[in-house]
């Protein structure tokens, strides 16, 4: 299997007045052609900053402080601003959580999709427009020709998210990064959008990075799952292994703390919880960042940084007790 994207030892730091925030600290993973990687974790774990780093959308005081981001073997970190602009939208595109803020309210949606084509390809405006309409059809927007002339406010949240997906796909990128694409949507609309993303991925052999805090959403679509905590990947492996046989105490805790459908038969009064809360990235504990909340904690956990190590052929875990 060929890797479309390889991220190696990525470090993205924010240099604030109070100190250096290591939002992404030594993160490595790869995405195969036509496959989906799920990045899961709670707020502040660094999953969105990872995505922004891949698209080189980090602005001061943030900075990519180290590592490599290889897209088809080409290191994106070494590219000039002009070069990365050619990559963005054409080879990598992003879908954000809030389609209302990501779309320009005073331009028609068709124009905004066509703009993406014009930015990257030498085509006539008429051609770009027809590509836009075609992309809208591909994301199953009924009456696409007419809808292309609508402004964002005339569309529902689900339709706006389809527009964002059409815009992301119109230049046939190799990699799409979807950052909480369904979080703002109702559950029945979420189901529609997830199904759409998955069928487009198969149809166009897209590689997809799906970022979500929702373990259910990740389990639905991802083949590989990376769990992040306090800027680091704590567990990575095939979805089946990570969900069915989680090795890191944080992954275990997360999976146990979500209420599940069917709980009314199991008659369990209390949910298992992870005590405490996510540490402040400015004052991370020595050693394992999760140690203060961990039920397996020992003195060894707090002495030195814990490496991510294989526990099986396919699964890696950052825990000395795994």
């Amino acid at each position, binding site marked *: 299997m060929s890797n479309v994207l390889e991220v190696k030892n990525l470090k993205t730091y924010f240099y604030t007045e109070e100190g250096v925030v290591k939002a992404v600290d030594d993160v490595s993973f790869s995405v195969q052609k036509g496959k989906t990687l799920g990045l899961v974790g709670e707020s502040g774990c660094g999953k969105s900053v990872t995505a922004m780093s891949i698209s080189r959308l980090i602005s001061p005081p943030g900075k990519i402080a180290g590592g490599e981001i290889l897209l088809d073997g080409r290191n994106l970190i070494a590219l000039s601003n002009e070069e990365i602009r050619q990559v963005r939208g054409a080879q990598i595109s992003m879908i954000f959580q809030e389609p209302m803020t990501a779309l320009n309210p005073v331009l028609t949606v068709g124009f905004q999709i066509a703009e993406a084509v014009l930015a990257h390809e030498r085509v006539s405006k008429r051609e770009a427009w027809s590509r836009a309409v075609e992309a809208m059809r591909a994301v199953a927007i009924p009456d696409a020709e007419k809808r292309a002339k609508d402004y964002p406010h005339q569309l529902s949240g689900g339709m706006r998210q389809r527009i964002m997906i059409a815009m992301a796909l119109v230049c046939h990128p190799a990699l799409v990064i979807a950052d909480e694409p369904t979080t703002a949507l109702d559950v029945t609309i979420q189901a529609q959008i997830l199904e759409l993303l998955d069928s487009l991925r198969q149809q166009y052999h897209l590689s997809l990075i799906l970022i979500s805090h929702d373990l*259910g959403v990740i389990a639905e679509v991802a083949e590989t799952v990376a769990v992040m905590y306090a800027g680091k990947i704590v567990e990575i492996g095939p979805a089946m292994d990570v969900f*069915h046989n989680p090795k890191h105490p944080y992954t275990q805790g997360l999976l146990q703390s979500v*209420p599940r*459908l069917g709980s009314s038969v199991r008659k369990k009064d209390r949910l298992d919880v992870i005590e405490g809360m*996510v540490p402040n990235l400015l004052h991370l504990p020595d050693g394992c960042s999760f140690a203060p909340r961990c039920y397996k904690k020992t003195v060894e956990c707090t002495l030195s940084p814990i490496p991510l190590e294989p526990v099986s052929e396919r699964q890696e875990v950052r825990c000395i007790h795994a």
Partner: protein
Amino acid sequence: MPDAAEPILSVRNLKKYFPIRRGVLARVAAHVKAVDDISFDINKGETFGLVGESGCGKTTAGRAVLRLIEPDMGTIRFDGIDLLSLSSQELRRRRRDMQIIFQDPYASLNPRMTIRTIVGEPFAIHGIARGSERDDRVTNLLKTVGLDPSVQSRYPHEFSGGQRQRIGIARALALKPKLVVADEPVSALDVSIQAQIINLLGDLQQEFGLTYLFISHAIPVIEHISTRIGVMYLGKLVEVGTSAQICLAPKHPYTQALLSAVPIPDPGARKQRVVLKGDVPTPINPPSGCRFHTRCPVAIDRCKVEEPPLREIEDGRDAACHLVE
């Protein structure tokens, strides 16, 4: 389980329409039918979950029950008293027994007040427990919700989302209410913190014999916490039953679709789902007949013209659908 005793809250034919004004004369051009004729009972000590998608009217229903929004029609009997007949002064006194916890722990705490003032405010409003007695009570409340009482002189911005939600809960419990309306109390929180707050709400219910009206769009959360569940769609209750009846064997096609849309955190369990077509119609001009017929996978002609009433279809379960036996 519902017992023979009179329910603590009994809502009948509750309606709330919001006017939409247009033009220079601000004439009422239409109404948003946010809550359109719903009835339900909540028994003492149980948790009644109200679930539905955005715009279905669940929040409006929760607020109308407390008269934070004045209902247009209907009756609300709470603890034997007709709430809608009370004057605003009488209502204020009654509010001691009915409190609310809001979704957004950032917006619902005054940033200029210390935690002591915020949690002590219900005492100030109702003129009970002054001076050191009030301080003692605040201290106890903070302990009850799992906060260190030494935080009293701090301000809301110094706390995380989960801690703020605990402060909101302490404030709601200050006057030992009988009924607590919890409106999406965990939706803004991270997964690991959500579980902590859900457990806390459960513990407090047992300790103080609280009755909850729990409003959420998250079905697994509702199932976990509720004794009975009401499912809303476009201002109407479409199905009401016990947690197990609704979540294990839903009868209304909307409930079925809603449940099948919930993503399961298990990659091995990817299932056949009923994917509903289209979007929720606007509550300004809801579809005729059954409001769900435009998206319903099994709708027949009758559904377009005749509105199905909410009727009992088996012991403890009501559904509003022509096709459910």
